[in-house]
């Protein structure tokens, strides 16, 4: 889907950066586009949509880049914008909530039966719904913790929050997930 079709996104006004800034921006694209993609994928769980959101986030980043030259600051800003854009897209188009087998690289793919594959898809669906139901503050911490492989310090840097705050939110999120998903685990 083209970004122009997304009616819930505000227009991005074009700006011109000087050549040095353009070069820096190119470097940011190279080292942070995957991060933006993963954040959006954690919310949307569809690759195409996640890439669109990453692209949109960088368009906005380009506009504000003059004040975002610091690398850590840029990544924190990018994470927030990508998360917000992904939430907007998810809310604006509920019909596109079909899940894609995109999150986990499944080593069993090809060897599992149809029933096992259906059960896995169901599990993925339920886990996604449980994460979606978390409050936004807990949700972004959960997504980033998965992206950063539960490195609390990295998550804290990306969110520009104290580590204690990240730990507390992550614990609350996991507690909520445990309560929501226990029935699912009891059936396996």
């Amino acid at each position, binding site marked *: 889907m083209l970004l122009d079709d997304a009616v819930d996104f505000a227009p991005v006004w074009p700006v011109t950066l000087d050549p040095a800034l353009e070069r820096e921006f190119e470097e940011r694209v190279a080292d942070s*586009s995957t991060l933006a993609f993963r954040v959006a994928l*954690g919310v949307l769980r569809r690759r195409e949509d996640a890439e669109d959101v990453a692209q949109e986030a960088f368009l906005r980043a380009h506009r504000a880049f003059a004040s975002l030259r610091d690398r850590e600051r840029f990544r924190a800003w990018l994470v927030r914008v990508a998360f917000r854009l992904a939430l907007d897209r998810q809310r604006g188009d509920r019909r596109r909530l079909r899940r894609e087998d995109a999150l986990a690289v499944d080593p069993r793919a090809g060897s599992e039966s149809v029933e096992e594959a259906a059960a896995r898809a169901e599990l993925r669906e339920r886990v996604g719904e449980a*994460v979606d139901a978390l409050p936004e503050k807990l949700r972004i911490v959960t997504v980033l913790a998965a992206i950063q492989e539960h490195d609390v310090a990295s998550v804290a840097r990306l969110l520009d929050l104290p580590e204690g705050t990240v730990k507390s939110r992550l614990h609350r999120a996991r507690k909520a997930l445990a309560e929501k998903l226990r029935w699912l685990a009891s059936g396996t």
Partner: protein
Amino acid sequence: MACERYVGALADVAAGAPAAPGVEAHLAACEVCRAELQTMRHALAMADAEMAGLATAEPTPDLAVRIRQAVARTEPSPAWRFGWLWPATAAAATLLVAFAVFLVRGTPSAPEPRVAVDAHRPQSTGSTRATGPDLATSRSSAQAERRGVRSPGGSPRTRQAGVPPAGGTLERQVLVPAGETEALLRFVAHLRTRVVSPDSLLVADLSAPLPEPDGVEIQPLVIVPLDPAETSGTD
């Protein structure tokens, strides 16, 4: 089913918090809650496994290229900086035209009925609208009518419709029967505020005789004497 009061504490422990002494003692004694704790830990492990794919998910190789192209497409053209002038000018012109149309059409073009309430009062010409003094006169006439004051000729405060005033042209006029002046004034007020259109005034043929009601019989009133014993109200 785990003990309900420990569900929250079990979720805390499953999420990684140390078990409080009371919870630990309960877990040691309650097999069901131990199983529930295991279930919660298993649920979190499944969620972690599902989310783990995020750490290694890779976009398509051309994402960075697409981003660069999208940024390049939004680079401002030389005409962009003043490109907003045209839409702004068009919007201002549209607003001006709309305002002018509003001013022109805001004045009612359709003639409104004139209220004639006093046969002896000279009528103005050249305007088909009920003017302020006309209304004031009408109001004072209505007040006088409510007080029982009659016109000098002793007739109701009405005048014949369709009679052109001296030296003037025939105006649209309304015959106001005695006692209905006030209702008509309210109608004129509605016209002025455009709540109703002039066409909504129904004109009756006043020269036609009133239809006789048929089939209506009025029974003579029968007065039944009251029985004092039934209406005394005392036991």
